């Protein structure tokens, strides 16, 4: 069977499973809709959390980011796993004991304030919306790369699937589809990783190959190219360092970011991870406090399988790509001897999808891959391909390569490589069977859809449970509340779909924003709420507002280009002052969430010292959530509703 047939078969089969699970697990009550009835076993919750957490970015892009960034990529590896230690030790067990449905539930009750609840709802909506749009885009990209379906249709199909099981099944439907999606995505990630590991290191386990020596079919050739004689062994990481430096790149195991910046970004990502509402609510779905701890363990274990393999995939992919294309002739006719490398067929396939582009700057007919930007047009650096004006077919250069309209840069580098190719094209680069390619498509879709569904859950419960039931009309019936929840999920799906089809130009920026906001609001607020009986509502709310204001201002100042003009007007900045040279202590916007968190803590503690301590019943509540006994099922509010003197 050809690639197309395999892809349709595997993707179609996985979708059928998701839909079947959705029908089997329809939600009847509010408890089932919000927290899957509180009866999810820890192992299943661990898998669901893994799929919930690992998004299109983890699956498709992370290995590529590490492949290009080397040591700098460590911020994602440590940042997106270390947060689970914080979650397991500092938040999950206590929030489970607290036993409501949402994150704003906790903030609102702990702060005995509906104002706090509304602030938390706005933060949750802000974080989740920025995140979900990217997922829908990821769905569209996978459809267009693998199934030759236009991106917009891909988004619509993805919307349909998520709509069906998130709106019908709520948390219950989402949880069990996420379990299936975890299985699909981890299998899809690991199979090509194992094949690549065998090719380059002769080792079955990618994590072992990563720290091992070159070996296997391709690895032995590379070792010979690097001058290994006889049975001499070269470590994989030493080899990639050598290849990188020979081509003018930084050594893979060295970074280019400052140590302080790496430190700060890692903190922001860890703390942001622990503060993301769609991850936190997964811990409400298990029966007991000790199940919450156990499922945090399973979740990190399942996530770690992919995260420890990702740097290996990044190195394998980079090495194999350079080995295959560097200094190879694009046109086989030009090769003078058997020794000369020739560009393989898959190169042309990925050229048509825009993930690769070649500009023959020195007219030698060979692909030169060196350090530096290929194109001279600003920061975007995406290739724009020229097409014929008559029939829209791609224009070809003298060697048959696609012609780009971007102006070439001064650097000798001739090859544009999109980072996503390190995962998406690996099966073809490594000559793997066709079904592996189909599997990869299903895995990418599973990663994107599962995360999108988890985020929609946060959006829907924030509107129906926290805003409608918690603030506007506490007397609403369960049936009405559920209909509003489904309506909000539906609106969320369409909103996400809209942004998936018309992606805002700031997708990369909003990721920094989502983590920065989570780090500077929810994490400190929940932590103080549990660990300090003295933290008052004024303190916690004030901390959140000051933390978010600081972080938001910093990110907008340095990430959004329109802010430059605005700042010139309001504060008399020089034009172009939104550059790295002006960063606070050299901390990039990605890492500023860590300072935002400190600002939040400082403000919250200071304000708490000046304001009266929480009333006795709140102090009793805190005492109560600190010990695990009698957690019971997740339930509705029992505390008296907030009063008129609410802040």
């Amino acid at each position, binding site marked *: 069977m050809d690639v197309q047939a395999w892809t349709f078969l595997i993707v179609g089969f996985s979708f059928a499973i998701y839909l079947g699970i959705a029908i089997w697990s329809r939600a009847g009550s509010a408890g089932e809709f919000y927290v899957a009835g509180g009866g999810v076993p820890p192992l299943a919750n661990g898998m669901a959390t893994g799929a919930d957490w690992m998004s299109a970015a983890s699956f498709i892009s992370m290995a590529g980011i590490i492949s290009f960034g080397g040591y700098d990529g*460590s911020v994602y590896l*440590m940042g997106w796993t270390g947060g689970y230690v914080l979650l397991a030790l500092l938040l999950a067990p206590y929030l489970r004991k607290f036993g409501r449905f949402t994150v704003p539930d906790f903030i609102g009750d702990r702060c005995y304030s509906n104002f706090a609840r509304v602030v938390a709802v706005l933060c949750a909506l802000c974080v989740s919306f920025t995140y979900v749009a990217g997922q829908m885009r990821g769905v569209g990209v996978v459809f267009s790369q693998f199934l030759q379906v236009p991106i917009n249709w891909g988004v619509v199909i993805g919307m349909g699937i998520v709509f069906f099981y998130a709106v019908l099944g709520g948390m219950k439907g989402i949880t069990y589809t996420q379990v299936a999606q975890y299985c699909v995505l981890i299998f899809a990630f690991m199979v090509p990783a194992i094949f690549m590991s065998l090719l380059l290191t002769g080792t079955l386990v990618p994590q072992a190959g990563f720290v*091992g020596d070159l070996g296997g079919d391709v690895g032995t050739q590379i070792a010979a190219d690097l001058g290994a004689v006889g049975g001499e062994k070269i*470590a994989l990481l030493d080899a990639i360092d050598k290849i990188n430096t020979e081509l003018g790149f930084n050594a893979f195991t060295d970074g280019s970011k400052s140590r302080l910046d790496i430190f700060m970004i890692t903190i922001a990502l860890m703390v942001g991870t622990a503060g993301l509402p769609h991850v936190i609510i997964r811990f409400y779905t298990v029966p007991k406090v*000790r199940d919450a701890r*156990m499922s945090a363990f399973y979740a990190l274990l399942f996530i*770690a399988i992919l995260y420890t393999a990702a740097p290996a995939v990044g190195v394998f992919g980079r090495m194999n790509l350079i080995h295959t294309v560097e200094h190879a002739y694009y046109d086989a006719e030009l090769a003078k001897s058997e020794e000369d490398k020739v560009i393989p067929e898959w190169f042309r396939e990925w050229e048509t999808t825009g993930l690769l582009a070649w500009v023959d700057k020195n007219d030698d007919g060979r692909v030169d891959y060196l350090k530096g930007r290929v194109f001279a047009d600003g920061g975007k650096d995406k290739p724009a391909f020229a097409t014929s004006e008559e029939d829209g077919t791609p224009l070809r250069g003298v060697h048959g390569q696609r012609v780009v309209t971007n102006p070439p840069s001064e650097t000798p580098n001739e090859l544009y490589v999109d980072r996503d190719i390190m995962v998406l094209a690996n099966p073809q680069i490594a000559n793997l069977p066709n079904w592996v390619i189909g599997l990869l498509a299903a895995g990418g879709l599973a990663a994107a859809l599962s995360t999108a569904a988890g985020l929609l859950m946060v959006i829907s419960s924030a509107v129906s449970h926290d805003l409608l039931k918690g603030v506007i009309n506490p007397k609403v019936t369960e049936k009405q509340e559920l209909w509003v929840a489904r309506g909000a999920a539906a609106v969320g799906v369409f909103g996400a779909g809209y942004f998936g089809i018309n992606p805002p130009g700031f997708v990369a920026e909003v990721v920094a924003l989502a983590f920065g906001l989570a780090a500077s609001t929810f994490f400190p607020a929940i932590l103080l709420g549990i660990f300090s009986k003295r933290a008052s509502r004024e303190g916690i709310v004030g901390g959140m507002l000051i933390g978010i204001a600081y972080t938001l201002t910093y990110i907008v100042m340095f990430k959004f280009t329109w802010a430059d003009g605005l700042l010139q007007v309001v504060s008399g900045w020089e034009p172009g002052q939104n550059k790295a040279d002006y960063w606070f202590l050299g901390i990039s916007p990605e890492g500023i969430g860590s300072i935002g968190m400190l600002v939040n803590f400082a403000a919250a503690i200071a304000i708490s010292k000046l304001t009266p301590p929480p009333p006795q019943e709140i102090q009793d509540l805190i005492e109560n959530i600190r010990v695990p006994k009698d957690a019971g099922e997740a339930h509705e509010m029992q505390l008296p509703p907030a009063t008129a003197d609410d802040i």
Partner: protein
Amino acid sequence: MPNDPTQDTGPSAAQRYWKTNIKYLTVLLGIWFAVSYGCGILFVDQLNEYRLGGAKLGFWFAQQGSIYVFVALIAVYVVLMNKLDRRFGFRED
């Protein structure tokens, strides 16, 4: 008020449970910080003088070792807390 020192009724089970919990957290988070921020970032250059298999040690901590330690830390925490629950009679059935 429970946190008022003048009305200290002596350490109850819940307070002793909480105190031990804080002790565990401090030690475990100390290790968490040491492997990721210590070995993986602050002292990465010094550790890169040493090797673990084919990898420089500091680099290995940053891209592999810290993740393994994170998983182990949560496992240890689960075991410790389950024991603690039993000791103070807070285990849920």
